[in-house]
């Protein structure tokens, strides 16, 4: 779901642009470091491939068909940093040339699809890749689509686009169906690619870092569910903090949120340090 301009309120798109810009710079640097020369054209051609592969219809059941979204496939084939970069490039082209997603909303769309979506795919592939590859790839496809869609929905709700409970449940149901379809299509596509040349699809990382992947995925899912809950029922959070929205301005609220995230991050970091020290001792 590409959000066009005009839907997100100014604080929402501005915050997400500010978050996405350094994140894109970071993934670009990562991708550059991991990439040999011959992979630069490869990344571009893979982006074009995803565009083209979206035209192939996968028949599912009578009269319905789905198509590949491709985030998880790119993550499995190219690795997370390169996949995120390629998806960002696709989103920029879609926003400017194909009128699919807005220019100011680019930060939001990059955050939902190229950052959070790829993170979900990467973490699930890493977490379950050793146990069962098919399950891992299915989860990567399904979770990446579900994450992106739920985040987009949450952002629209926070921006004040009104939705009744019925519409909300219907769209969540639709997201679930398309997430499951993406999972199945990604598994089928990866299998077809591996049949042609197994070397094209890299294996998942060794299992030693499963805890990190598990915690990361759990954190990501918590953020997504939290965003949705917060956007559906802001009243609860207001009651929790004991003040109405009107009493604070949006920069204060944003800063408060960011401070909270930083605090949680610091706690997780300390806990991880402690754990690794105990293990090495």
């Amino acid at each position: 779901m590409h959000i066009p301009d005009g839907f997100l309120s100014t604080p929402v798109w501005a915050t997400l642009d500010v978050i996405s810009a350094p994140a894109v710079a970071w993934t670009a640097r990562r991708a550059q470091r991991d990439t040999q020369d011959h992979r630069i054209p490869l990344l571009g051609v893979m982006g074009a491939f995803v565009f083209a592969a979206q035209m192939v219809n996968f028949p599912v059941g009578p009269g319905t068909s789905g198509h590949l979204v491709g985030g998880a496939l790119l993550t499995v084939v190219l690795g997370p940093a390169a996949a995120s970069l390629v998806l960002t490039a696709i989103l920029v082209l879609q926003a400017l040339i194909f009128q699919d997603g807005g220019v100011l909303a680019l930060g939001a769309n990059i955050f939902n699809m190229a950052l959070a979506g790829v993170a979900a795919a990467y973490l699930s592939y890493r977490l379950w890749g050793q146990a069962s590859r098919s399950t891992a790839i299915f989860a990567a496809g399904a979770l990446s689509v579900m994450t992106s869609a739920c985040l987009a929905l949450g952002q629209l709700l926070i921006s004040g686009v009104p939705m009744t409970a019925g519409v909300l449940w219907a769209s969540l149901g639709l997201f679930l169906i398309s997430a499951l379809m993406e999972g199945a299509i990604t598994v089928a596509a990866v299998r077809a690619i591996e049949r042609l040349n197994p070397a094209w699809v890299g294996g998942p990382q060794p299992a030693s870092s499963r805890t990190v992947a598990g915690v990361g995925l759990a954190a990501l899912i918590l953020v997504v569910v939290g965003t949705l809950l917060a956007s559906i029922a802001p009243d609860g959070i207001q009651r929790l903090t004991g003040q109405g929205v009107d009493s604070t301005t949006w920069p204060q609220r944003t800063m408060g949120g960011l401070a909270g995230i930083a605090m949680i991050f610091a706690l997780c970091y300390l806990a991880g340090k402690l754990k690794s020290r105990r293990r090495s001792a």
Partner: protein
Amino acid sequence: MHHLVIDRWSRGSSSLHQRDPRAKLAALLTFLIVLSTTRPAAQAAFAAYAVLLIITASRARLPILGLAGRAALVLPFSATFALLTWWSGDSLRALALAEKSFLSGMAALLLVATTPLTGWTAALESWHVPRMLILVIQFVYRYLFVIAEQAQRMRWAALCRGRGSFGLAAGLVGVLFARSWQRADGIYHAMLARGFRGRFVPAVPVPLGASDALFLSACLAGCLGIRILL
């Protein structure tokens, strides 16, 4: 044969085509930010923005109906949400949603219809967008239609052989992937044969001219004037 009409438009020679891409990109961002912060109740402002875009398009000698038709690609999405908003009783806001998304699409189109891809990517690069991202954008755009056409041909061939199935579609994606991968290899070797040494030489930035500054200030004055007065 796919051929993007925007590519043809962007090779025009009007005064708008000759402006520096950085000035046009800055003007686009100003317009979008001003549009985004306009209140739904200020319907006169939306009409004025539309007039501003029409004047710009006619200065660039672009077909206005063609532009509007392409910008209307956003309407299915925004109309859905506009209807939802309408049902919840906020008709003014519903109208503003559709108008904002349509005008934003139209403004972005005006940029790419007057600036070739190399122009606006160079502008992005001068604003320190990572080089790697710029390169990937250029490669995706260059091979987009080549590979899409290949996919289309393969799809037709598969349809001619019989009814599609899930497995068949997966095979199609697999073969398309293999061909793309081999094409990327070929591209890299062709680049090496042409003297590619592992990095691209960045273009030397040219300072903005007086007419570019004039264009940008006219755009700023137009947008802000409408936003404040109406």
